[in-house]
């Protein structure tokens, strides 16, 4: 083991009395050379380490700028990568108590940020479901989820991760382990001829063949990055970042009387809040901010190439302080007959309201408002998306001001 022995020293031509001295001299010389060599190598390693650190810090800074850019560009969306919907008119898979099943995921691990399985019906009685995601190559459990029976209902059971899996591609197994009096019934999507890809028993000894594949959904995001999650998928109490889905933006209500121009633009996934001459324009997203939120960010910009400059702002306020819209003759919730500016300024001045500065953008300019809260919200808040013409006298023709990618961040637990 270890290294080979040192080279032999030929002492045949050395006098006996000189041999000891020669051996010692040789050892000293050898050790000295070795020390010098080691010192040089150590210095080289210090130098290499310092270069690597500098490079690492630059990379970190660049990544931070990239994050901002991606966020500002509205690119930070997770992707539904695989959708294997439930087969119809088939008997579900019965997950028996204490007989866990394994399902291999049909794609590589890189970037996976959420998986969903489909429950055929709510569980009967009490029970507990433990789901784990493991890599076969590394033999590591990468994520686990636990559900009580009461938390489970028919349909997709989402299994999100705070951070998308890293770029090191591996093969993943999803294991489902149920404890309950009655079996948990799961939907499956198709039959597979290769047993590696169909359901199998987690126990090697009771590995009965089953050629069915669980109904699955798999989402992916930038590998190794914190995932923006649609809030309706986010389990209560979780920390992280997520983006309000389009359906939430579509529920935005104009607070201006008879304003036909504030509406959700589905093709762009944006909420247009059209400025009003001489007044503020605002849309209300009721209760959009859950407790625990520490930062709200919104992309802003006009869809017009020729509009005059527009000011944008956002604000959050407790739902109890909501500017109450009234129902107009057309059946849409509106405030009737009054300019919005006084009511909104009153709201913005309340101590519990948090609002951003005004951000001024010319046509063709895009921007982002980040509203950092001094302390996380402790109760549900409304979100107000506000615009005005930069010059009060300016006509808002072709203004087409929009808000999008409303991103909420909670503090890590």
């Amino acid at each position, binding site marked *: *083991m*270890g*290294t080979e022995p040192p080279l032999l020293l030929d002492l045949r031509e050395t006098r006996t009395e000189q041999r000891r001295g020669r051996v010692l001299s040789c050892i000293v010389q050898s050790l000295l050379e070795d020390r010098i*060599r*080691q010192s040089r190598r150590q210095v080289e390693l210090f130098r290499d380490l310092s270069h690597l650190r500098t490079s690492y810090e630059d990379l970190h800074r660049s990544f931070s700028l990239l994050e901002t850019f991606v966020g500002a560009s509205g690119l930070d969306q997770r992707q539904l990568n695989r959708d294997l919907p439930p087969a119809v008119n088939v008997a579900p898979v019965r997950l028996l108590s204490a007989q866990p099943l394994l399902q291999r995921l049909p794609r590589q691990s890189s970037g996976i940020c959420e998986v969903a399985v489909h429950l055929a019906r709510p569980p009967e009685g009490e029970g507990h479901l433990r789901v784990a995601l493991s890599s*076969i190559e*590394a033999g590591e459990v990468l994520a686990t989820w636990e559900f009580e029976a009461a938390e489970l209902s028919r349909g997709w059971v989402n299994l999100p991760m705070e951070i998308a899996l890293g770029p090191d*591609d591996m093969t993943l197994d999803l294991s489902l382990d149920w404890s309950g009096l009655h079996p948990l019934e799961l939907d499956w*999507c198709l039959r597979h001829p290769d047993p590696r890809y169909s359901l199998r028993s987690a126990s090697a000894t009771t590995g009965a063949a089953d050629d069915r594949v669980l109904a699955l959904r798999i989402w992916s995001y930038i590998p190794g990055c914190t995932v923006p999650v649609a809030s309706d998928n986010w389990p209560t109490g979780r920390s992280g970042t997520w983006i309000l889905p389009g359906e939430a933006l579509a529920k935005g209500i104009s607070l201006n009387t008879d304003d036909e121009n504030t509406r959700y633009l589905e093709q762009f996934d944006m909420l247009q809040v059209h400025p009003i001459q001489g007044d503020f324009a605002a849309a209300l997203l009721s209760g959009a901010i859950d407790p625990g939120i520490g930062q709200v960010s919104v992309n802003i910009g006009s869809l017009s190439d020729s509009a005059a400059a527009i000011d944008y702002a956002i604000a959050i306020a407790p739902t109890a302080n909501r500017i109450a819209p009234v129902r107009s003759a057309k059946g849409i919730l509106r405030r009737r007959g009054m300019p919005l500016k006084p009511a909104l300024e009153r709201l913005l001045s309340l101590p519990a309201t948090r609002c951003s500065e005004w951000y001024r953008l010319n046509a063709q300019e895009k921007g982002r408002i980040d509203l950092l809260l001094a302390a996380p919200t402790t109760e549900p808040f409304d979100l107000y998306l506000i615009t005005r013409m930069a010059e009060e006298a300016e006509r808002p023709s072709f203004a087409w001001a929009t808000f999008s990618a409303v991103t909420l961040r909670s503090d890590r637990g």
Partner: protein
Amino acid sequence: MRDTTAPTSPRVAVVIPVFRHSGLVAEAIESVLAQEAPFRILVTIVNDGCPYPETDEVGRAYARAYPDRVLYLRKPNGGLASARNFGIKTVMDRVPSVDAFYFLDADNRLRPRALARAMAVLDEDPGVDWVYPSIDMFGLASAWDYSGPYSLLQHSAINICEAGSLVRRNVFEDGVLFDQNFRLGWEDWDFFLSAADAGHRGRYLENFGFRYRKRPESMLMEADRESSRLKGQLALKHKDLFSPRCAVRLEAEETPRFAIYLPDRGNVLRCVDPVSPTARTVDLDQHLRQVWHAHTLPGCTPSPPFTIVMDSAVMDSLTAVGALHWVLWKMERQLRSEQIACLHIEQGAPGRISIKETTLASADWQVGNATVAAIAPKALTEVLVDENSYWIDSLLSAKPSPRVAHSGLQLPAEMVELRRGRGTAVVNLLRLVHSLRSSPYRAAAKQAWQWREIGTAMRNREYEIPRQAFNGHPVFPRLTEAGRNMGFLLPMAEFAGVERVAYNIAKAMRARGWSTHAILLDTNSIKVLPDWQNAFDSVNFLSDPDFRLGGAGAQDFLGTPISDWAVSGRHDTVLSMLYWLDCVLNFHGGAVAGTMGQLRRFGVRTVTSLHVHDLTHFGRPTGNTHVGLAYEHGFDFFAPCSETMATWLHGMGVPREKIVTVPNAPGFDLPVSDTRDRAAERRNRPTDLPLRVLFIGRLDRQKGIDRLDKLIQSARDRDMPIDWRVVGGSVMRDGSPTAQLRLAVPPEAPLSDPADLAAAYDWADVVVLLSRYEGLPLTVLEAMRAGAVVVATDVGAISEVVCDGHTGILIPDSDDISRALDALADLAGDRDRLGKMAGRAIDMARHRTWHAATQGLSDALDQT
């Protein structure tokens, strides 16, 4: 005895050769030190004379830091193979506890549980000798999967086993090491092929945890640039493995080419050779699942690429006739260009087997009436994924959309009694297709499942590997484990003369334990003799439109033209048809002599059976005897039918050791029950009856038919007491005046039945043969056996058996028939002399048997 009991003894040694990778080797070492395994692992760093001091420093540092886990070795530079071998040998000598070696290049890495998982595979299955990995490349990122059972055949075509494999110690104990001659690369490919040659086998471990650093420029890239040279080096070293015969054997064992669906049995025969023990029957459900498995995850599982449908009774009939392998080969050839192949088996004329082919349907050959149907691999794939089935369903319409090849096989009723009625093969093919399309596994094929790329790119295309030896031509599906196989190359088969010799040699060799196969080179229709199945195990038609039996070419040899086909024709069809035989006997096969040298390289022993010189118009010897000389190097043996021919061959420079005379014997056997004393019977014949003179043979100029005619007329002019019979027909249409000759005695139809032939000879007192040239005619020997006195021209080797005035009468080769006339007059007038000559002829011919004739050839073949 190795001491493996010490608790701290390592079970696995990881050998890391280092040469100019001093900056990266620490990653490799760290990844091994970080292994999570229930056994100890020894890191063996081999500094392969690396010129960078850093390599030494890193090696020493790790060895000092982990003296119990790291062994650091230095050696002069010798290349990757040399470095690995150094590490292996050192560990084998010093660390007896090591059960397995893993080879990690200095710039690669392992995931923490890789070796534990791989060792578990070795521990589970003692039949596995190495575990090879999936390869996850970083740098130039990609990932490769080699799922499915290990295939040595695939491994001969592409390197499916990365060096980063865990190899059992016994492989090295068997003397298998890395070949240091592969300095440009592929030493790992060679290593595993050598291990396989020694009987070891590997197993794939999916998700192994092996990480390969891929750079645009690497040793592997250099090896790829030298690929043709290295492939040649591999093929030379592993000659047997790269032979088509071995390739087909492996194909049969590992990945059958044909799925023969037998609807009446409800199962599928998966095979290359359907009568080989390697053929396996699976039920239909299993077949459907495997087909979809192969389509869903290409590369992961073997599934026969060619689907063929026939009833089991049809397959039994084809087997009985000996045409099953040929039918499979024929259909595979058709499916190179067509999408569907249909074979129509019909009841043909008595005593004949015939084939026909076309791509056009006819009134007789409707797709729906086919007896056997086959679908091409690509067409089946397209049909399975097609959104609807209109295209394939149109097969039963008047104008099918798929391209269809038709061929016909007509079999005589005495060989096979065919069931009357329509064939149902195509209907059953469609049923199979619809069963596949309605399979519950079809949905899976529409999704992507495997994230790694397919490394086993040849899976289910293995049939292309043996084809590589034949420029992509389909390879005859026959395995040779069953015994010794001898092919008889026949231009045609009407079974007179040379062909009858072939027939008798076939029977004799078959009786000696050979399997015999008729290979018809230049005909689509053959005569089937009554005891055909005692002579040939199979019948096979070359059916190659490119083949030219003869014809002039740019070259001639000793004045005999060598055909262009022999010199530069496309030989692939012939070679792919014959490669599997242990021996071929060429019976005047003309240009096929041009393939003999190539067949020898495939391990086929080649024999040319020579009988007679043809004569040019001016009487100069030419023909197959001279073609044989031209290709002397291509033949292992020359088998002349007479000593006269043997002497000529030796005189022309053929080594004596290559000449094995197979002297002709009577062309048909007398029934075993026929124990008559023919000499006594002849002595007791009345002496006052006219002399009975028989001619039997081809009615052509060579046989001197014009001389015979003159003889008959002269005898009649002299009122000689002779009863004449002329039996035979013209086979060669030589266009000469003799072919048009109207004989004075109307000829009787040729005889082939042994009883009829025996009766004809028994009838005759004299058999007359006035040939211009001959070898050693069977007629002469048959006549002598029967006691008919032969009166023949002294040509060829007739004098070897006919002793003039003793066992017969020889007359000079001349158009002057007076000597023949005198001989007949003499015999007619002296019956006592006739009887004595008959008795001596019978005695002489008694010893002429085919068993005795083939003894020398059999001995010669047994010795090579």
